[in-house]
């Protein structure tokens, strides 16, 4: 049957893209924010948390398979999605259409931010500890870039979770989608607060 052999490649790539954004990229974001939040308890708490992570067995394999690989896939394929999407939020100003545009804009911002973020931290060749981060974010330029990155990433994740639930057929009706939109925006505010609070803790405590 001709139709049974139809090309399902795009379908698979798109579904993998939404899945990778939540598991494991989204889960890693939560873990990362949790570790950062230990900075609010002082330098020792943060350094201990970093130490625990560094003693994960097969750390480089875990990092590559569960973070870098899905992150690169989600990011690069996401750039393609953002490129092929049309943008008409100025003509059709309904909330969801604006969120559609914002999702793609924050995605591109987050992609660029993550490259900068990896460059200045993970691949900077320096020991990751409280003092290192303190020195980094004490520079106002780095601080503001970090702040923009935190807001963009948390919005992209929260709003992405909303559309993940539609793509996977979890929230089907308009009521379910309306409620999940409110829940996800509350989630965004909380997550952004946690991220910014940690950022401020790195700046002010030394």
């Amino acid at each position, binding site marked *: *049957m001709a*139709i*049974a052999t*139809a*090309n*399902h490649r*795009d*379908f698979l790539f*798109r*579904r993998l893209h939404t899945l990778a954004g939540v598991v494991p990229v989204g889960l890693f974001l939560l873990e990362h924010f949790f570790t950062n939040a230990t900075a609010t308890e002082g330098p020792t708490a943060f350094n201990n948390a970093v130490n625990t992570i560094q003693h994960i067995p097969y750390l480089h394999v875990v990092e590559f398979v569960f973070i870098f690989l899905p992150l690169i896939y989600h990011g690069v394929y996401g750039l393609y*999605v953002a*490129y*092929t*999407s*049309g*943008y*008409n*939020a100025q*003509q*059709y100003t*309904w909330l*969801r*259409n604006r969120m*559609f*545009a914002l999702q793609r804009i924050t995605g591109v911002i987050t992609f660029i931010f993550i490259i900068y973020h990896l460059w200045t931290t993970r691949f900077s060749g320096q020991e990751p500890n409280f003092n290192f981060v303190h020195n980094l974010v004490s520079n106002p330029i780095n601080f503001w870039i970090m702040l923009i990155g935190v807001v963009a990433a948390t919005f992209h994740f929260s709003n992405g979770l909303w*559309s993940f639930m*539609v*793509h*996977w*057929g*979890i*929230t*089907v*009706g*308009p009521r379910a*989608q309306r409620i999940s939109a409110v829940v996800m925006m509350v989630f965004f505010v909380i997550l952004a607060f946690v991220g910014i609070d940690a950022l401020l803790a790195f700046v002010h405590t030394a």
Partner: protein
Amino acid sequence: MSVAEQDMNSKKKVVRLLIERQDDPNSSPYTETFDIPWRPGMNIIAALMEIQRNPVNASGEKVRPVAWESNCLEEVCGACTMVINGKPRQACSALLDQLSQPITIKPIRTFPVIRDLVVNRSRMFDALKRVKAWIPIDGTYDLGPGPRMPEADRQWAYELAKCFTCGACVEACPNVNEKTSFIGPFAISQARLFNTHPTGAMHKKDRFEALMGEGGIHECGNSQNCVQVCPKGIPLITSIAAMNRAVDGYAFSSWLGK
């Protein structure tokens, strides 16, 4: 107001239309202004007919009359869909008195423009063929009566059956553009309609396969413009989400069943 007075007023009152025109499929569009005499109860079609009767633009030049398509004049055929004051809708149900002036009229450019407001909507019918938006009932012998449809399902499925392939959802969808091959929201809703019908459900796997194919359901980006512009208020996003659930389930079970 007496009829005579109304006639007096209507002689004075004019309505200004800004129409985006195009001479042939390959030429570039241009906007032309028309001032047409107002009559009570006018819709956009009546205004275009006025231009046809007296094809003179606002500068007083005699021009080629504006070309458009219309048929039923009661918002059930979809032929007269245009972008009126920035929103895709049917010209027949767009009343002049309910529109802010000047009124801008543009063709639905998501489809190839043939001339002025006339577009070629063939891709919508190709999409319906791809998702098999029909119920096969013909056999080489009498197949007998089909299974009955539960009344509860019939009631909501009837809402989906109101789709008249007008193209408003295709026009408003940001993911229907020159870079994608997205079939459009209406086709996904129609696949759901025919999968719901007990006889149509006998071919539901074909429709799932089609929706997983190129330009299928995965191209939806959830901007939800479709449900906002649908003249029949069809729950298009609910249809898409319900088909997401069904197609994802089908994809998993067919993959694990191999």
